[in-house]
C-alpha cells in the first residue's frame, strides 16, 4: 500500500516543462513509477513514441535519472542489455549499487513492433519491469490504429466512412499474452487509481524476474477530450469494466478493484470524440456487441480470479 503523505513529500523525478500535450496521462504514469521506486535509483529505457519525444528534446530532458532511448521496437531488448551489464558488473565486484530497471513502451512499441523483443526478454527472465503506457494508438505519428485500438474507434488509419465504422477488430489482450509467458508478475493498472497503480509498481519492482504492467494512459489528442478529463476518463474505463484492474502473481489472478456498480460502456465511450460516430442511429448493433464483449471478458476475469 502506498502512503499518500509520504509520496507527497517525494521530489518530482519526471520534471515539468516536457512537451507532452496538456492533459496527456503518460507523464503521470512515469511519475507514479518513480514514486514507487522511492529512494532507489531507476534506470529507464523507452521506445520511440510520444513519451520519449516529448520528454527528451535536446538540450532538455524531463528524466532526472538515467534514461536511454534507442529505437521503437526494442525497449525490452535494450533493458535486457542494461540488466546483463548490471548483473555482470555486480558479479565481478565492479558495481555495488541497487538499481531498478524499468522499460517503457507505448502500445505500438509493445503490442505491435516491439512484441517479439518483449516476449524474448520475458522468456529469458531478466529482472526488469516493463510498463506499457497504453493510449490505444500510434499517437506520435498522428493517431494510427494499433492492435491495442478498441473496436469501433476512429483513428487516422481506421477512419469512419459510410462503409466503415472505425476499427473493425477487437484489441489484442496483451496483458493475458504476457500472463501466458508465466512471468512472476503481470498487472493491468490506471493512474486514475493511483494507490492501486503505485502498489503494483512496487510489487513489480520487488519481484525477482520480469514484470509487465499494462497502464491505460488516455491521450487527449487521439481520444479527443478536454485536457482536464483524462483522469476521469481513466476512472470510467475501470468503472465500466472496460479496463479491469487486476494482477497475475506467479500465475494467480486477483482482481484488485471491483466497481461497486458496473457502469454501462456507453458512459465511457461518450467521453471521447473518437467514439462519437457510435452514438448515431444505425450503430446500435455495434454498441451492443462492444458491451457484450466487455461483459464476456469481465466475467471471464472473475472466473479466472475464482470470484464467479
Amino acid at each position: 500500500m502506498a502512503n499518500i503523505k509520504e509520496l507527497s513529500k517525494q521530489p518530482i523525478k519526471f520534471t515539468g516543462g516536457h512537451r507532452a500535450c496538456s492533459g496527456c496521462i503518460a507523464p503521470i504514469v512515469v511519475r507514479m513509477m518513480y514514486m514507487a521506486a522511492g529512494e532507489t535509483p531507476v534506470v529507464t529505457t523507452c521506445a520511440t513514441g510520444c513519451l520519449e519525444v516529448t520528454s527528451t528534446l535536446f538540450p532538455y530532458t524531463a528524466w532526472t535519472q538515467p534514461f536511454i532511448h534507442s529505437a521503437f521496437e526494442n525497449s525490452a531488448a535494450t533493458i535486457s542489455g542494461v540488466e546483463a551489464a548490471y548483473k555482470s558488473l555486480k558479479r565481478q565486484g565492479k558495481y555495488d549499487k541497487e538499481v531498478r530497471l524499468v522499460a517503457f513502451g507505448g502500445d505500438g512499441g509493445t503490442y505491435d513492433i516491439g512484441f517479439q523483443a518483449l516476449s524474448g526478454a520475458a522468456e529469458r527472465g531478466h529482472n526488469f519491469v516493463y510498463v506499457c503506457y497504453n493510449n490505444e494508438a500510434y499517437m506520435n505519428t498522428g493517431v494510427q490504429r494499433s492492435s491495442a485500438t478498441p473496436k469501433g474507434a476512429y483513428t487516422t488509419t481506421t477512419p469512419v466512412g459510410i462503409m466503415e465504422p472505425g476499427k473493425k477488430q477487437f484489441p489484442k489482450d496483451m496483458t493475458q499474452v504476457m500472463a501466458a509467458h508465466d512471468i512472476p508478475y503481470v498487472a493491468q493498472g490506471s493512474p486514475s487509481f493511483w494507490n492501486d497503480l503505485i502498489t503494483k509498481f512496487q510489487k513489480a519492482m520487488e519481484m525477482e524476474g520480469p514484470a509487465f504492467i499494462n497502464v491505460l494512459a488516455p491521450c487527449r489528442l487521439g481520444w479527443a477530450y478536454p485536457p482536464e478529463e483524462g483522469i476521469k476518463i481513466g476512472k470510467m474505463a475501470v468503472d465500466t469494466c472496460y479496463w479491469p484492474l487486476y494482477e497475475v502473481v506467479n500465475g494467480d489472478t486477483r482482481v484488485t478493484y471491483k466497481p461497486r456498480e458496473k457502469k454501462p460502456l456507453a458512459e465511457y465511450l461518450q467521453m471521447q470524440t473518437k467514439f462519437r460516430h457510435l452514438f448515431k442511429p444505425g450503430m446500435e448493433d455495434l454498441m451492443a456487441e462492444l458491451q457484450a464483449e466487455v461483459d464476456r471478458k469481465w466475467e471471464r476475469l472473475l472466473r479466472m480470479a475464482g470470484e464467479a
Partner: protein
Amino acid sequence: MAKTLEETTKMAAKAGKNGNKKLSALTGNEAVAHAMRQINPDVVAAYPITPATEIVQIFSSFVANGQVHTEYVAVESEHSAMSATIGACAAGARAMTATSSQGLALMWEMLYIAAGLRLPIVMPVTNRALSAPINIHCDHSDTMGARDAGWIQLFSENSQEAYDNTIQAIRICEHPDILLPAMVTYDGFIISHAMEVVRIEEDAEVKEFVGEYKPDIYLLNTDKPVTMGGLDFTDFYFEHRRGLADPVSKVKDVVLQVGAEFKKQFGREYGLFETYKLDDAEYAIVVLGSTAGTAKVTIDDLRDRGVKAGMVKIRMFRPFPYDEVAKALEGKKAVAVLDRSDGLAGRGGPVFGEVRNALCDWPNKPVTVGYVYGLGGRDIGPEMIESVYTDLQEIAKTGKALNLVKYLGVRE
C-alpha cells in the same frame, strides 16, 4: 554449418586448452571466439547465423565452463542482439556480439544508433552473401551494405588477422578520441571454417593489451544521471551528426598507433592496408579479405615470369584511407579493383568507387578498372587473378580500358 553438441563441446574444450599454447590449428571462428574469451567482455548478446554460428556456440561453452565472466544473453533476433549490446555498452559494460549476412541486415537500424550514441562495440562479422537468392557462402555484400553506418570496418585475410584485428579493435574503439563501434570481418567458410595455424597469445598478455573498459558516461552511474538517445530537431541534429566526423577523422592515427603497440607486444605488423610487391609494380590489384592470399601466390608466379605485378590489400575499409591508397597506387600503369560485392550502382562495386575517388585528384593516376567476383562463395583461383593482370597489361598498352567494370568467373 550445424554442429552436434558433442562436436561443439569438443571444439570449445580444444579451444579452451589451446588458450595458453602459442601455435594452434584453428578455424577462423575458433580463433575469433578465442580472442573474445581473452577479451572477456562483460556482456555478449548474440543470435546464431551461418557461418558465424560457431562463435556463438563456442563462446557459450566458455561461459558454461566458467572460462569468462561474461553475462551471455541468448537473444531472440539480431535486432535484439544489437539492441541489447547497445543497452549493455551504454550501461557501462564492455559488450560484444557477432553475426553474418541477414543478421547484419536485420541490425541495420541499430548500427547507426550504436555509432550515433558513440558506443565502442566490437562485432566480428563473418562475411556472407545477402538474399535473395538465399546463400550461406562468402561475399562482402553484408558488410558493404553497412559501410556508411559510422562503424570502423577492419577486413582480415586469414584467421590470424581475424584474431589480431578483434583484439586491436577493442583498443581502437575504446580510445577516448574514437568511441565508435567496429566490425572485424573475415570471409565466411573460406576463413571461418578452414583450419589454419594460428598464433594464440597468452591470456594474460591479451588481457593487459586490451586493458579495462572505463567509460566516462554510462547509465549505471546513477550519481551522474544522463539522458541518452534524445530528440534533436533541425537546430541540433546536424551538429551532432557533424560531430561524428571528428572521431572518424582520428581513426586512422589510432589504428596505426594501436597497430604499432600490437607489433611491439606480439610482433605482427598492421597498417591501414598491406602492400605486396607493390613498390616496383607496374600492374596492381586492390583486394579485401582472403582473396589476398590467392593473389600473393599469383603475383609470385607472375613475377617469376617477369610480369611486374603487385597488390594493395585493404585492411581498414571504413574510414577509407583515401590519400594513402592513392599514394601507394600513384604511377602504376594500370590498376584493377576486385570487389566481392556488386554495388548495383551502375558502375561496379563499392571498393572500386572508393579507389577511383581516392585517385581522382592525383596527378599521376593510373588507369583503373573494376571487377566483381566471387558472389555467393564462387571460387576465385590464381588463373582468374592472372587473367586480371593479363587485362591490365593490355590496358596499359593503350591507356584505355574497353570495359570499365567486368564480372569475373560468372556464366554470362
